[in-house]
């Protein structure tokens, strides 16, 4: 995605092949909850002072990922359903988070982090990594189907209700908002 709009500070992290070996031995295809799931670290996130856009008390959770995108997708889908999104919208949010996290795998030299929280109005997924987006219009223009990249952030903008991209020299934070159906 957006090959030109990212600065690549170093080699991307290597790919793990553990799931494949497991699958081959057990003679079955991968499950929705991948084998690498337990590798995710879950920790409570203290509410940063002064940021009133974070939820007041709901339980924001934090995950660190390198290349285990299937595990990240499983987590996002589970929270999306739990928060009250329909299956179709949960798929949208899962796709969006996966596309953003894919940028981490491709362009960042260190792991990314994902935080998820929701209240009665919306569910928010916040992805942070050390990659840098230099194009202020990243993801706002529809790329041609002949383009070799650039669809990721565009898809994110299509499926989410609100997308915030905050990028500076220290890294990029992307917040994906999905409105919840009215109770």
């Amino acid at each position, binding site marked *: 995605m957006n090959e030109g709009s990212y600065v690549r500070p170093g080699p991307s992290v290597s790919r793990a092949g553990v799931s494949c070996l497991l699958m081959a031995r057990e003679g079955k295809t991968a499950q929705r909850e991948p084998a690498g799931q337990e590798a995710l670290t879950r920790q409570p996130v203290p509410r940063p002072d002064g940021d009133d856009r974070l939820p007041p008390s709901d339980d924001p959770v934090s995950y660190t990922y390198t290349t285990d995108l299937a595990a990240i997708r499983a987590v996002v889908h589970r929270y999306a359903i739990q928060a009250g999104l329909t299956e179709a919208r949960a798929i949208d949010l899962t796709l969006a988070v996966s*596309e953003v996290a894919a940028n981490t795998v491709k362009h960042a030299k260190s792991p990314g982090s994902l935080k998820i929280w929701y209240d009665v109005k919306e569910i928010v997924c916040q992805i942070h990594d050390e990659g840098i987006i230099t194009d202020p219009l990243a993801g706002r223009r529809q790329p041609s189907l002949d383009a070799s990249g650039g669809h990721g952030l565009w898809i994110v903008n299509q*499926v989410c209700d609100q997308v915030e991209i905050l990028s500076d020299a220290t890294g990029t934070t992307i917040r994906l908002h999905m409105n919840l159906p009215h109770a």
Partner: protein
Amino acid sequence: MWYNKCVDLLTVSVTARESAGELYTLVEIAGEADVTNTDELRRLLDEEVSQQPHTLIIDLSGLRFMDSSALHALLRVNRSLDRQGGVLALVSPQAAVAKILRLTTADRLIPVFDSVAEAAAG
């Protein structure tokens, strides 16, 4: 000709088949296709394209997820086949895969069928 390879969460199976006297190549992709296994997916698909099949059918019914990297691999196959006079068809995408095909309008570029039999019949 057949083989079955798996790359992380992805399984790719290839078989040569015949429908009404016409040979076609059936590629079944199962699991989850994303940036972490796109290079392998692309390599496996390139191998099939290099055999110059007239019809290449990709069965997506076992694929739970596809991101834009994997989509680019499919679009690349479509371009290559187009250049060499072949045809690519997709079969039975699940909801998440159908969504990205629709969003990017890739499903207007590459024909999508409900079954392998329909795709083989053209």
